[in-house]
């Protein structure tokens, strides 16, 4: 099937009719495949081991964007569009991000600051640090999956998410560390 035929198939009305629930109909299959991919990365494997040890539950919502960790319930949410039964590369990147957010919170490494007690600038600094750390983790996972496992489509997707220059900088940093023998 050529590209336009695939596009028209996806746009066609009546191609998907799923129950009106937030949870994805193919959650089990998507999570099985996404965790399998994530497991191929050293960073991703460590995140999954952490989730297993701490009893974090994973969920997939019918949505095309976003991920998150709900601390009160120890639940991680990632998104995958309705009608799909395999995780998109973005869903794998989301899973890494959501698990890192969980790890930040549960290990007190970068716990969410208290907006009531903390001055505004300190609060903003803390939140930015959390986001940077999450993005760094996602970049590591993307790099490891592409360089070690040859999953280049995950790099393309990371680029499309707007992180081309970040990824290239990370790659250069790894190379220079390897040249210097520090990695």
């Amino acid at each position, binding site marked *: *099937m050529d*590209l*336009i*035929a*695939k*596009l*028209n*198939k*996806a*746009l*066609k*009305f*009546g*191609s*998907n*009719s*799923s129950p*009106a*629930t*937030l*949870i994805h109909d193919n959650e089990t299959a998507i999570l099985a495949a996404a965790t399998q991919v994530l497991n191929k990365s050293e960073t991703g494997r460590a995140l999954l081991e952490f989730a297993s040890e701490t009893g974090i539950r994973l*969920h997939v*919502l*019918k*949505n*095309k*964007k*976003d*991920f*998150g*960790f*709900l*601390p*009160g*319930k120890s639940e991680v*949410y990632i*998104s*995958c*569009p*309705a*009608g*799909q039964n*395999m995780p*998109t590369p973005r869903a794998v990147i989301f899973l890494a991000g959501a698990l890192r*957010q*969980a790890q*930040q*919170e549960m290990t007190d490494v970068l716990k*969410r600051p208290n907006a009531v007690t903390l001055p505004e600038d300190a609060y903003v600094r803390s939140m930015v640090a*959390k*986001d940077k750390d*999450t993005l760094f983790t996602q970049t590591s996972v993307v790099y490891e999956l592409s360089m070690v496992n040859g999953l280049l489509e995950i790099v*393309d*997707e990371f*680029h*499309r*998410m*707007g992180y*081309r*220059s970040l990824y290239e900088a990370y790659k250069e940093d790894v190379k220079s560390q390897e040249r210097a023998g520090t990695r």
Partner: protein
Amino acid sequence: MNWQKLERSETARIIDRVAKTPDGTLFSLATSEAVAATLPFYRGIMVVRLTNYATLPNFQLDFLSDGQVFYLLDGSPDPLQKVAARGALNLNERNVVAYVDFFFRHVTTEEGDIYLIRDPDDMPFMDSLSLDQQIRIKREHTDIRVGYNRDDDTFAVHSDLYFAGVLLKATLSVATDGEIEVSNHSMLMTPNGGGMRSTGQANTGMM
């Protein structure tokens, strides 16, 4: 989009509606906020955005709603079809581009998102391209043209699209029930950066 924050009571009602599903415990009134915006192509339907500030990071879901029924924008065309089937869609030559843009922002494919290029400088995927590719997109870009075909009661939107790493010039045929079909396409740029590879004017049609 001109978002309006909803009253707490209205937010509570929305969460209650959403939470009626067995899995709807993701949002709670204490930690969530709802905003809504009107859309120029719908009568009596608004887009509602529910944000949960308890999740890390904040998590958002978008719905189409008449205030009673909430259709989750789930990445498929299904909720747009359901709303159109209620007779809420009112397309004309002035609002059809906004509809197509909204459609592509909320519907995705296994190959990734589809972008209607209204302004190349305002496209989120531009950072994923090399400088040469960015220059090529800007050079090839033409403004969107809209026409109405009385014979089959459809709108023709002639525009540039970016999809799966491919830049296309295409005609989008938009039916009055909101269904979109891409035809008359020519490729301007392929994923490896090749340019101006015309594929002719074939209507690839539906499956």
